[in-house]
């Protein structure tokens, strides 16, 4: 009796300890980055996030292009990956014959296991030339999008678009795995009720299954977004690393994670190091804000009326 009670207490203490370690770590990271970043913030002021001039020699640090690039490349990634991933998940959970489910699901999950540097190499040698030689001419000549600012200007290959596409492929397995499991968790009765009312399979999926699972699907999308925001290596290899804000998706860009990865090893001046830490702090805050918005979205959707 006493032994069991002691066990319970120990167990409780242990898991409480584990749980508290995480917020503690988060606080430590925030403090360490904040302290290291302070000199750069106090020197550059607000211009650190509004200025586009990143000039190490002149000691001027404006991270706006990197912030812009992180957000835009992640947004492209989600715009491409979400429909695809949700489609894959619906197919796997609702439509695919049983013998096909496991192999396809396994292969989609396998995408998450590929190291990002391998994605980067594949990007340099396959994706970037393919985009430049086939996709861009298609967008411009067949779809006549060349006149819009989004697809104007010279297309060298390494670009915001290339980064977005590669991030989409990397985020896809996360979104589809979560969505698939969430769809599988929709109760049988939900489906049966829809079918009993005379719904077709498509109507059943659209009106009964997906709405029931939507908060979980949004959760999956956010997980993919988290992956896209922080991805470094593959993006660095295909984005062109140019600290400039351009309306065209075919122009090279930069992301915060790439900026840090590129410059940290050779940063010797105190201000330069601090500026890189400040970029890290901004990335940290941007990620927190995006996650905050996402949680709010999940909460709003979850508390809304269900189908």
């Amino acid at each position, binding site marked *: 009796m006493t032994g069991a009670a002691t066990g319970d207490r120990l167990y409780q203490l242990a898991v409480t300890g584990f749980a508290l370690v995480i917020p503690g770590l988060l606080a430590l990271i925030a403090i360490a980055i904040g302290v290291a970043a302070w000199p750069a913030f106090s020197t550059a002021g607000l211009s650190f996030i509004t200025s586009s001039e990143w000039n190490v*020699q002149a000691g001027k640090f404006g991270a706006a292009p990197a912030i812009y690039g992180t957000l835009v490349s992640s947004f492209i990634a989600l715009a491409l990956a979400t429909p695809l991933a949700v489609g894959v998940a619906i197919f796997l959970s609702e439509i695919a014959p049983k013998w096909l489910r496991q192999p396809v699901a396994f292969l989609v999950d396998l995408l998450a296991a590929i190291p990002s540097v391998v994605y980067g190499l594949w990007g340099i040698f396959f994706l970037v030339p393919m985009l430049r030689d086939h996709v861009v001419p298609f967008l411009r000549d067949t779809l006549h999008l060349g006149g819009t600012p989004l697809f104007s200007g010279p297309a060298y290959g390494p670009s915001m678009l290339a980064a977005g596409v590669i991030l989409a492929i990397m985020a896809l397995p996360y979104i589809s*795995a979560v969505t698939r499991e*969430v769809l599988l968790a929709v109760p049988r009765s939900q489906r049966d009720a829809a079918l009993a009312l005379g719904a077709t399979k498509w109507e059943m999926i659209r009106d009964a299954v997906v709405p029931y699972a939507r*908060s979980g699907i949004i959760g999956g999308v956010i997980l993919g977004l988290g992956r896209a925001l922080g991805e470094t290596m593959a993006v660095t290899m295909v984005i062109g690393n140019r600290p400039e804000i351009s309306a065209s998706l075919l122009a090279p860009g*930069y992301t915060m994670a790439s900026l840090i990865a590129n410059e940290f090893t*050779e940063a010797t*001046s105190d201000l330069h190091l601090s500026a890189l830490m400040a970029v890290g702090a901004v990335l940290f805050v941007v990620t927190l804000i995006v996650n905050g918005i996402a949680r709010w979205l999940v909460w709003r959707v979850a508390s809304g009326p269900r189908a």
Partner: protein
Amino acid sequence: MRETRPIKAANCCDNLVTLGVSGPFVAPYLTASSLQHSLLITTITHRRPRMSRRHIAALAYAALILAAAACTSSEEDDTAATSASRSGSVDLTGAGATFPYPLYSKWFSDYATATGVRINYQSIGSGGGIRQLSEGTVDFGATDGPMTDEELGKAKGGAILHFPTVLGAVAVAYNLPGFQGELRLSGPVVADIFLGNIKKWNDPRIAALNPGVSLPSSDILVVHRSDGSGTTYVFSDYLSAVSPAWARGPGRGKDVAWPTGLGGKGNEGVAGQIKQIPGAIGYVELAYANQNNLPVAAIQNAAGAFIKPSIAAVTAAAAGVAAQLPPDTDYRISIVNSPGAEAYPISSFTWLLLYRQQTDSVKARKLKDFLRWALREGEKQAAALDYAPLPAAMADRLVQRLDSIRIAPAGG
């Protein structure tokens, strides 16, 4: 106690798993690294009970592996550290430049075979080498660009000496489909290309340097390093020397604000992009241009001759400058745009860095012995590995300069 633990761990995992899956809302909280993601996804999102046990096992196994890895790595560190201090298996530690690493690692292994003195070198980049030497965490540093006065001022151990070891060249490589023969460029033209002032391959200024050759009318795409690099330092040092507009604008440094072009990470990144993009021009270390079979431009030197980068042309560049060195030089010297008819203009030393005032007499003696060996014997191996050896007269002067290293009294 020990036997019951795994069961408890499994139970606790079971609870975590159930908790995690009770709502699909877990997802937003999970934005850590990719490996953890893939583990977590397969673990927490499976609801079907018959699946869960396997996944608990997987999670527990992963935790075990992580814990084991953590244990072994710290144990290894400990044993390495203690055995190093006890039996002297690692005598000297150094860190810095990646460019000379292939040669240095051959030197260190040959030197260990010859003398038994072991040297551990980490090629973490010039900036990292400077930082570590300044903090006193390594016995010597290595850099591709000389330390600035500001960096020297921050060194905790006092005055730092620069010892040139070998030389390297930065090649201007290009990708011009259908273009045969030798592309000739002058310093000011290269600078204007990298400033974005010359935008087409058939620009009159390029054509004037290449009479009788037909150049395409395509756009020039500049490719430069996106990461901080000694290669960038040498190249921007050269452009600053030959172009006032470059000196006033981007200037010289390991990271410069490029007016135009794409950034590639590492020599391999730049070489890869040049190879992939028709019309591209960029700068890489000579060895990378050779390995990737990239055509390289002949650059007009200070004497007016067009020289392609080669080991002989680089040593010639050093010889031209070395002959004019003052006796009290600190060897933080640039040899870009060197005089001499045979000199390749975008050449540079790479340096070893050490404190003038050594605190450990045993290490100081080993350092001096090694440097003497490197300057005498090591230089002979340089050419075989694509590095240009120092001019002989300069190597002799550097051996004499080793005497200026002072050793503090024992206990200091």
